[in-house]
């Protein structure tokens, strides 16, 4: 049941408990209870809105930074990852396999702002060996949604 609720909410976080209850043929209070518990257990960590800021007046620049670190003795990568993700500008931190250790995603108003943040706040951290900053020029698809598509229903209006 939990997995089914999660799959529905992942597609549309605005789906009402009423609708979920009908779609899963399960009483409303049971659904509410499950959702509250999953929120407590941090299985559901938040409800976000996917916005295409390029279509608004707000300036948003996103950068993907490859960070190489020396892991701290006794703490591995977790401590340095925490020092990085505590920054408000940092939107995501992932531990990676391969040629570098951490992917850090940063949002700022301009490229300069982001670059300065990396230079002043990120590269200077003790355990950080090197950073490589890549700016996102265009987002085609994010979180499973194609951003540009204009979905029109092209089917014949009535068919047998």
């Amino acid at each position: 049941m939990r997995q089914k609720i999660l799959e529905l909410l992942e597609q549309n976080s605005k789906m009402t408990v009423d609708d979920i209850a009908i779609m899963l043929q399960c009483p409303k209070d049971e659904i509410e209870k499950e959702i509250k518990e999953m929120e407590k257990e941090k299985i559901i960590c938040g409800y976000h809105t996917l916005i295409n800021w390029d279509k608004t007046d707000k300036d948003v620049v996103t950068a993907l930074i490859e960070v190489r670190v020396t892991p701290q003795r006794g703490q591995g990568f977790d401590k340095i990852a925490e020092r990085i993700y505590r920054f408000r500008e940092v939107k995501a931190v992932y531990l990676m396999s391969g040629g570098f250790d951490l992917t850090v995603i940063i949002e700022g108003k301009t490229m300069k702002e982001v670059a300065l943040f990396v230079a002043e706040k990120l590269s200077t951290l003790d355990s950080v060996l090197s950073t490589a900053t890549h700016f996102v020029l265009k987002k085609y698809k994010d979180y499973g949604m194609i951003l540009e598509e204009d979905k029109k229903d092209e089917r014949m209006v009535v068919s047998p």
Partner: protein
Amino acid sequence: MMNLVNDTVKAIPPSGIRKFFDIAAEMENIISLGVGEPDFDTPWHIREEGIYSLEKGKTFYTSNAGMLELREEICKYLKRKFDLTYQVNEVLVTVGGSEGIDLTLRAMIEPGDEVLIPEPCFVSYKPCTILAGAKPITIPLKEENEFKLTAEEIETYVTEKTKIIFLPFPNNPTGATMSKEELEKIAEVIIKHDLFVISDEIYAELTYEKKHCSIASLPGMMERTLIINGFSKAYSMTGWRMGFAVGPEELIRAMTKIHQYAIMCTPTTSQYAAIEALRNGDTDVEEMRKAYNGRRRVVVNGFREMGLSCFEPLGAFYVFPSIQGLNMTSEEFCTKLLYEQGVAVVPGTAFGDCGEGFIRVSYAYSIEELKVALERIAVFVDSIKDAKQKD
């Protein structure tokens, strides 16, 4: 000047759907719940394979019965999904399920034969039966039986001239399905009267409580059943025109003969795409089925809340609520609903006379659109009820 059109064709009534299509197509901003095809795009990997085959220049005729590779995959698919064992020489790839129906009738019918057609049903069965030179005998199914076919109903309408019986489950327009136990009961009567079954299983992947059971899997039935299935509904490939017929080798050979002269072969591009669908499309089908299931429950719930009786359909993507008690014919209801609330649904009479008093509502739409449509229909139904009270 000679007659341009023969009497048989002239006598076939125009499709009830067509009339609605013409009205609805003229109007703007309507929400149409009248389609008979999925809203999902064909999964990308299937489209990609079709496009790739064009890039590689695969644009020539294939063998008449369909590419061997495709027929092999169809046999594997039928085994994997429905535990049916067929050989490649028992498979014919057709231009949609529609061509399969037409070919079967044309290959089998002798003048004077009767064909039993349970209604409400897909609009093609009767016209194709007439065009093949047989006499269609309608079996009107009942809401109290959840629009399933019963052994008694077959007994009532069978004669010694009956050759073929159509078995359209999961059903368009009612969404009804038949379980293995229910099929066993009618299989008895079918064998007793030595009938042949055309089992239209085009919606076989879209069942919601139990897995689909084909009547051909029952003892004594495989040699007297022709299964019609295809890619249109399961894989969202309606426009690709890909279907298949599986059945006794002798019949398939005859159907292939007609197909060879009338069609040559189904589109090559579609065949390549279909192979990809069968090989790697199971996850897509399951995702679509889950989505339909959620929508189905929302729509059935919506109609029941409006006070319209609606049995729970366990297959396809249609709901068949009853509008009896509102003192209107199905056509009147649908026309008024279209003009007053801008929602198009199809009158049950488009699928047979016993569809009077019902409407077919398709849920091949997003939940958001369905909810808006249900709200509008509820407003309309309330207005009818109010008007009735004032009388």
